[in-house]
């Protein structure tokens, strides 16, 4: 199989190959990485003179937002700055709620797939969060404040997922969105049946058809239901004081599926074609659980009424198409058409780069399908918040909600808008002016570190090998003049 241009089209590569993470080539940190430092205690901030797109109650011209204790304290036109408040004069600028990305793979340490088995519910993305992933910062710079971090799509039933806030500089334990229900990734169609990823000469993994995908899910939930009953019986007997009651053997694979049956864990299902969408809705009905979101759902427009009737959310791409057969009927009108048919729709990224301009991607639904400005903005704010069950906390600019806000220099539904500041919990996590002003210093620091390292390498020739830490490195390797760029461990292990 030949894959053309994947080197150029990383976006397509994600959609196509995310299921395998073919060439995960992480680059470890260098010196000039934007400073990963957590802002201090939540200050009192007044943003004033801005055009405020509240999402929930219209647009406020020359408006202000007052932030206290990390929450939105007041929204209006004539708010006086309290004593000690930091005042951001945002004349000519726009404020929107932080962007919620309902499908992300950032902040994951290593591969996003446990591809060996078709039901991999045993693994949990929350356990491999990497707070140093530079893509957290880049997406923050694109106005994203919340991301639904998912496994890949190699498995009919994939791993457990987690919603995070992009608190750059905080440790991994501080990333998860407090109180947000966890989820689980499902995947239907070409990826779980391995249409595009078979290893030459390898043994095929069940399932290899869409029929088999259905049965894989049914089989797993049949087991989960029995397991749930076994526990229920045990709990009943032991509560009644039956000392002979023996607890069922705990099954880490089935535990999350029981949580799905109990409504304690959301199902986020990767899907493309209309038939598989209806299949999953049917299976969910059979087992009595809800599909919280259909992800990608590029043919959702064909069965929008059925999706709406099932109460499932739809989280889709703006305009991706034709990268595989099941994406050949994808249309950029998908989000608008589903919206018009009563589905709660969001536009997601699936890709660290795409996430940096989700505001622009949402804007395309104005052109393709005629959504209003308000409807378009909802696709990346309140709608994904509803889909993730966190709309009581984020997704609109309302008093009492988390102060997750983005300030743009233009209307955010334009290709000319640039994020100036991103706030999470009332703290400034991204500031464009600060980023720019710190560049020279970081560059200087990087140069100094490289020079120091070179010097150390000249003194002690063996240091070169140690730095690379390549087992079995050939002795002549250290003779190389054109030494590769210092790989992170050497740098970060020291000064940083």
């Amino acid at each position, binding site marked *: 199989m*030949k*894959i*053309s*241009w994947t*080197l*150029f*089209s*990383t976006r397509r590569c994600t959609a*196509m190959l995310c299921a395998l993470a*073919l*060439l995960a080539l992480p*680059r470890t940190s260098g*010196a*000039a*990485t934007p400073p990963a430092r957590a802002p201090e205690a939540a200050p009192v901030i007044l943003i004033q003179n801005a055009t405020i797109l509240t999402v929930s109650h219209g647009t406020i011209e020359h408006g202000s937002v007052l932030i206290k204790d990390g929450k939105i304290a007041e929204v209006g036109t004539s708010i006086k700055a309290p004593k000690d408040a930091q005042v951001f004069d945002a004349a000519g600028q726009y404020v929107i709620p932080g962007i919620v990305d309902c499908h992300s793979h950032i902040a994951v340490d290593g591969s996003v797939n446990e591809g060996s088995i078709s039901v991999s519910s045993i693994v949990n993305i929350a356990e491999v969060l990497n707070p140093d992933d530079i893509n957290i910062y*880049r997406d923050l*710079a694109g106005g994203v404040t919340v991301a639904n971090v998912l496994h890949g799509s190699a498995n009919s039933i994939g791993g457990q997922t987690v919603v995070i806030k992009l608190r750059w500089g905080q440790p991994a334990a501080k990333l998860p969105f407090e109180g947000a229900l966890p989820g689980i990734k499902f995947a239907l169609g070409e990826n779980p049946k391995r249409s595009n990823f078979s*290893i030459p000469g390898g043994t095929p993994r069940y399932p290899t058809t869409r029929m088999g995908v259905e049965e894989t899910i049914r089989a797993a939930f049949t087991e989960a239901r029995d397991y749930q009953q076994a526990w229920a019986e045990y709990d009943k007997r032991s509560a009644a004081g039956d000392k002979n009651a023996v607890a069922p053997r705990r099954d880490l694979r089935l535990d999350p599926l029981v949580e799905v049956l109990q409504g304690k864990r959301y199902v986020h299902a990767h899907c493309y074609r209309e038939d598989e969408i*209806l299949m999953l809705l*049917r299976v969910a009905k059979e087992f009595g659980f809800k599909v919280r979101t259909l992800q990608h759902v590029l043919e959702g*427009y*064909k069965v929008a*009424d*059925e999706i709406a*009737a*099932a109460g499932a959310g739809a989280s889709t791409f703006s305009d*991706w*198409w*034709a990268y*595989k*057969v099941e994406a*050949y009927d994808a*249309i950029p*009108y998908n989000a608008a*058409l589903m919206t018009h048919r009563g589905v709660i729709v969001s536009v997601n990224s699936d890709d660290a*780069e795409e996430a*940096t*301009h989700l505001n*622009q991607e949402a*804007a*395309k639904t*104005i*052109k*393709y*399908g*005629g959504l209003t400005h308000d409807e378009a903005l909802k696709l990346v704010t309140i709608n994904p918040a509803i889909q993730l069950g966190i709309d009581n906390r984020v997704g609109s600019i309302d008093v009492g909600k988390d102060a997750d806000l983005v300030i743009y220099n233009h209307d955010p539904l*334009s*290709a*000319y*808008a*640039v994020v100036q500041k991103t706030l999470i919990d009332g703290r400034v996590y991204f500031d464009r002016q600060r*980023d720019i002003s710190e*560049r020279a210093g970081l560059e200087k620091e*990087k140069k100094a570190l490289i020079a120091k390292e070179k010097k150390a390498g000249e003194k002690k020739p063996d240091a070169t090998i140690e730095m690379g830490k390549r087992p079995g490195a*050939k002795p*002549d*390797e250290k*003779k*190389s003049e054109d030494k*590769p760029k210092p790989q992170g461990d050497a740098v970060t292990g020291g000064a940083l």
Partner: protein
Amino acid sequence: MKRLKWIELSVASAAAACSFFLGASAQAQTPTTYALTHAKIFTLAGAPIEDGTLVIRDGKIAAVGPNLEVPSGAQVIDAKGLQIYPGLFDPLTQMGLSEISAVNATVDSSETGAYNPDVVAATAVFPSSEHIPVTRAAGITEVLVAPGSGGFDFSGSRGVIGGQASAIHLAGWTINEMLIKRSVAMVLTWPTIQTASFDVATFSRKDKPFTEAKQDYEKQVNELTDYLDRARHYAQAMGHGGPSDFQRDVKLEALAPVVRGQLPLLIFADRARDIRNAVEYCDKQKLRMILAGGGEAYKVKDLLRSKGIPVILRPTLTLPEEEDDAYDSLLTQPAELAAAGVKFAFGSFDNSFARRLGQQAANAVAYGLPYEEALKAVTLYPAQILGVSDQVGTLETGKVANIIVTNGDPLELTTDVKFLFIKGQQTSLDNRHLRLYEKYSNRPKPTTGAN
């Protein structure tokens, strides 16, 4: 609202659209004079014309200016409130060579083997590709189709010379009708020092020591030099004798215009080191070069300017190469290159994302590129860089009438193309996506729940 407007317009222009389809099969007989009146016209060859008229005759722009007389027999389109621009030019696609990238049977973009200078993109452009109407509905009227660039297969082999890129109009019944120029540039993927590769056996990443990777790189460059030397000798022989005097070699023959400096190399390189190496190589070898990709072109902008190397930039909406690069380095790069005097055009490097071309340019404006430069970088500059600006790129008398009529800034996300002309023919805006949208918009409410 939007849809209704579109339908109104499409009804108004249905006759014209029909005449295009008829016309394309029998171009000689169709009435081919149009007058677009009362529009704001951005010729890109001078100041915008506020209330202007543009006359199209026999596929060419016959006149453009204020207060022009409408020729008798011309089909008049009142474009009051609308704006006219040259159609957008995407200088890097695989349009017609690749339909569904995951399905090998639909992909003809990269030939196997390292050296394929004789293959020509235009040969395999599929005129019925669904990508073509989708792309032109976004206002793109012509593209470069580049073969072979940067592809890899699971054997890990990478092509070096991919073949000849062709410039085509995005309308026509056959490739002959679509062709702007069959051979525009020779595609070359500059070898890189690759310390990480994909291992088929383990289906995972495989690391290679740097010295070994560097040796591989040097070997590839040496092979390229040998190949070009052979082509040079061959070209000399061609000049001094007839085909009976030597054994013909179609691959070397295809390289003759390159080594003679007649055909530019379109060199794919992104890292500063690779760009520098490629530029110095071409300088030494006296080869014409266009840089494609240029992810770190800003780091070598002075070299590019001093050597006069134009760049077809990869999408601005791309993450930086290194994690310690500024987060916006690809967004600010066009402004930096423009200020340094490097000529560049924006390319989509894709088919299905080709319609993001305007968005890519607008994002560069957001990060400091002057608007007019951005507009030229998707119209005039690609035409100049690829040597076809005598035909397309501006709205000037005598040029091919590739024209878009819009309701606003063609780079902005929400702007609609209202009328489209390619080779002077009004061309349909219908496409697969619009058809599916209309079909399923009209789906009645299901009577029985499918669930």
